[in-house]
């Protein structure tokens, strides 16, 4: 993979120029660009621990790493107090910073469904992820606070949404953030709705068509350059031009391949042409492991894991014996999914993590599960740092704590992969973010963020563009899980139930399906509980979030 990245110095200069351009007395600027981290337990890279040492950051770069360094007089000193320092993490593929499209999902009005405009067909390889990124999108902050400094962002869309950009998770504009623009081509087996290519077979055929079209287009462009006299001028074509680097094998293709089947298909598609291929958002490797090894391919594992084993549904449909057998098979399958990462490690297949369809905040708990199933912490750290750095071609500037690299560092109070660890600081190119400790509440404690506090009946009201919709919410315990039922005052006969429920530190999220005029719609609800009150949002794809609040009416009798 060819590496084309911005000269770092120019990049930094841009940032500083900007911060000096405007007088802003609402903020007080940093006094110095030098930071000295004192007495940290430094994990230079996945296999090397330096012990207690110091790190000097200057102009966003690591200036010095060593034992018992002397802090310069003009540096701000951070007392690490033996906190653990790691290279900040690198997200190998996600949609971080790109808001979900507001376009309503409606059937495009295309006369000839077999020949839709490229945009409708989901074929926009000329677009760059960086042009969609909103630097203040909440997802960027959330990823950074999870310990990440760099992300490889690919656009949202269907078959060929565009090119991936490698960005730094700091900066005051999306331009500032770009480390590598048009770094990768993002390809998915996702058909367009109602038009060609609609199915996976349509998408795969279309890809082959585009690939060879671009190949010959490029050939024609080249020969036209050499001799253009008496030859029909080849027409410019944005889509084909964008694909030329892929046909020249200088731009890697990142694919979304959730299942083993997708992996096999992606490989079969690539086999005859041989462009660099990265298999992304992999949830199931299954029988594809040998093939991965044989082809020496890179894998990005999805951080999302199957849901933990729950007691089987209350469906008495099968005789006990066969039910037992079915449960056993399910359990084996669950274990196999969780053991995949360990198996990749054993097989020597390099992998990193991607976040296309999972949340950064699940990262640690899920990696712990993988570690429980045999993955080493060294490989886990490599998958978060050195491997993605290599995959993204930025291993010269990121992925380890070494002199000259970007000052992308995290400090944790305990070794990161331990359950009780907490990230205290994240440095992204020297910019420091201190992560405030969310105080763990005692269960049913005074602050009211324990799970027990939720149990009971609540009123709610949603502000639907000015009108208040009200109703009741009943939260109860269902084994280890929560059960949420709610009834809208406008339709007291219908009880809706929440699913995909998560609860953490006072934040409750769930999804509810409602009937929106004959069409089922999923509403994602996120509520922050504080004592007997909550506030939050209800959001739906393609609509802005609606504010929501509520009060407790009653608790269950004790």
């Amino acid at each position: 993979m060819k590496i084309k990245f911005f000269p770092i110095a120019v990049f930094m200069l841009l940032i500083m120029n900007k911060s000096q351009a405007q007088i802003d007395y609402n903020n007080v600027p940093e006094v110095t660009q030098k930071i000295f981290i004192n007495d940290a337990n430094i994990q230079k890279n996945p296999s090397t621990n330096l012990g207690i040492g110091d790190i000097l950051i200057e102009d966003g770069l690591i200036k010095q790493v060593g034992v018992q360094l002397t802090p310069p007089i003009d540096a701000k000193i951070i007392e690490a107090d033996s906190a653990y320092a790691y290279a900040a993490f690198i997200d190998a593929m996600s949609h971080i910073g790109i808001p979900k499209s507001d376009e309503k999902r409606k059937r495009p009005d295309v006369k000839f469904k077999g020949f839709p405009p490229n945009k409708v067909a989901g074929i926009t390889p000329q677009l760059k992820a960086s042009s969609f990124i909103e630097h203040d999108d909440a997802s960027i902050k959330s990823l950074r606070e999870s310990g990440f400094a760099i992300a490889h962002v690919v656009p949202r869309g269907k078959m060929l949404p565009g090119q991936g950009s490698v960005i730094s998770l700091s900066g005051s504009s999306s331009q500032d953030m770009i480390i590598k623009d048009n770094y990768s081509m993002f390809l998915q087996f996702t058909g367009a709705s109602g038009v060609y290519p609609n199915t996976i077979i349509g998408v795969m055929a279309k890809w082959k068509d585009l690939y060879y079209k671009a190949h010959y287009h490029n050939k024609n462009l080249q020969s036209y350059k050499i001799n253009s006299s008496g030859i029909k001028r080849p027409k410019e074509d944005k889509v084909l031009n964008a694909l030329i680097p892929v046909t020249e094998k200088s731009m890697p293709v990142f694919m979304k391949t959730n299942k083993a089947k997708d992996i096999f298909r992606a490989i079969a598609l690539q086999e005859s042409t041989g462009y660099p291929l990265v298999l992304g958002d992999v949830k199931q490797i299954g029988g594809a492991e040998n093939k991965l090894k044989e082809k020496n391919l890179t894998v990005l594992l999805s951080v999302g894991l199957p849901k933990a084993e729950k007691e089987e549904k209350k469906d008495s449909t099968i005789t006990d014996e066969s039910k037992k057998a079915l449960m056993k098979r399910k359990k084996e399958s669950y274990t196999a999914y969780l053991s995949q990462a360990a198996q990749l490690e054993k097989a020597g297949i390099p992998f990193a993590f991607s976040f296309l369809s999972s949340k950064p905040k699940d990262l640690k708990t899920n990696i712990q599960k993988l570690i429980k199933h045999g993955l080493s912490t060294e490989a886990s750290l490599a998958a978060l740092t050195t491997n993605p750095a290599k995959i993204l071609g930025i291993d010269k500037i990121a992925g380890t704590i070494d002199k000259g690299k970007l000052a992308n560092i995290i400090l944790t109070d305990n070794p990161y992969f331990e359950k009780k660890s907490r990230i205290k600081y994240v440095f992204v190119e020297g910019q420091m973010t201190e992560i405030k400790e969310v105080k763990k509440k005692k269960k049913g404690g005074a602050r009211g963020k324990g799970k027990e506090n939720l149990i009971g009946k609540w009123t709610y009201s949603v502000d639907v563009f000015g009108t208040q919709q009200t109703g009741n919410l009943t939260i109860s315990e269902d084994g280890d899980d929560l059960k949420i039922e709610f009834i809208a005052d406008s339709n007291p006969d219908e009880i809706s139930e929440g699913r995909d429920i998560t609860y953490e530190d006072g934040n409750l999220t769930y999804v509810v399906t409602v009937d929106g005029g004959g069409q089922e719609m999923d509403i994602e609800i996120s509520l922050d509980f504080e004592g007997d009150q909550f506030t939050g949002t209800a959001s739906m794809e393609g609509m802005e979030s609606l504010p929501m609040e509520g009060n407790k009416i009653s608790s269950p009798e004790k």
Partner: protein
Amino acid sequence: MLKITKIALSILFSTCLFGQSETGDVLIKNGTLLTITQGDKENTDILIRNGKIARIQKDIQPTNDIKVIDATGMFVMPGIIDAHSHIGIDAVNEATNPVTAEVWVGDALDPYDINIYRALAGGVTISHAMHGSANAIGGQCETIKHRWGVEDPEQMRMKDAPKTIKFALGENPIRVHGEGSRIVPNTRMGMEQVFRNAFEDGKKYAAEWDQYSKGLSKMAPEYNIRKETLAGILSGEIMIHCHSYRADEILMLMNVLEDYGVNKICFQHVNEGFKVAPELAKFGAYASVFSDWWAYKFEVYYSTAYNAAILSKNGVVTSINSDSRELIRHLFHEAAKTQKYGNLSDNDALKLITFNPAIQLGIDDRVGSLEKNKEGDVAIFKNHPLSIYAIPQYTIVDGIIRFDINNDNADMRIDIDPEEIIPSFFESSTHNHDNCMEGVSEFLFEHKH
């Protein structure tokens, strides 16, 4: 001796890893062999070595290491071949355009489809996984071997089987494109022009590239995978399998093909084939039919269950297919119906699901009968396969036992959902006769009149 075999085996297996699919050895003893091409042989053994039929004779002595099946009292026939099915694939119809020659169901094979195992449990070793019938020129198909257990889709393919493509006439493409999207074809007249137009495209495209490859033009013509495929049909590289019902449309397509010099075609369903059996025979066209489906739509209202018999007796190479994940499980029974409807002999009836579909798929030199050097695809039955009491006992693909009634765990899934314990219960609907139209409902009836 044993050592040598072991080494041979390990060499064999090492080649398996790289592209070749796994093969096996098995000796089937004392069965009644229904060879299809060389008569029935009682009390005869059949030895499969390295996935190929090595010997057929009485009293073959087993070597130490070989798996032996005692088929005493059983019937041993070639693995059943289904010339029309949609199992083992994840997409059937790219229904967005009347011509989608470039799409290929072989791109989306699904080795986890439980219907493959269920077909094996009905003695079927090979099926022709086809694109659907939404388009006049649909996608390319794939001939798959039922190697249940493999996970790499590449291992499902019957390597080097000729390429085939699905065409469709009549109501389905008209419903989707004419009625659904208000574009040509809306009639059987329009259908003809869609083919002529596409073939012209393919012809022109081939000529342009020919010029280029001879260095007569400097610039490469615009690459177009669709036209490339159409050119492949005209050159005879890709064989047409055409969904068809009515006699007139069958004649139409043969006329068009004659004009473009295409001389090979297998008509699928071809419910009114019996009306033009002499014309089909003269053209050399094949017919792959249902045993008794009719009246599920208007174009099959004037049908007869005697279709296969009439076609066969008129010299048309005929097969009986399933087009259904239900019927594929008992094609032996579907073939038996030709004895009810048309008095076919046992051998002629069995030919409809073995040798004839092999001819239609261009694989008759490799499978479709029990002959020396053919591939070791075998189905073993308790009771004669044409009896209603026939029960498949073993199904063998390339010498490997892929179905064994005594070694069947009920739950034979490979890909287990890590979250779901009890797989969903599906209410059975009455027979779905439009498997060919899978995935197209959203394209129908957008414009009502």
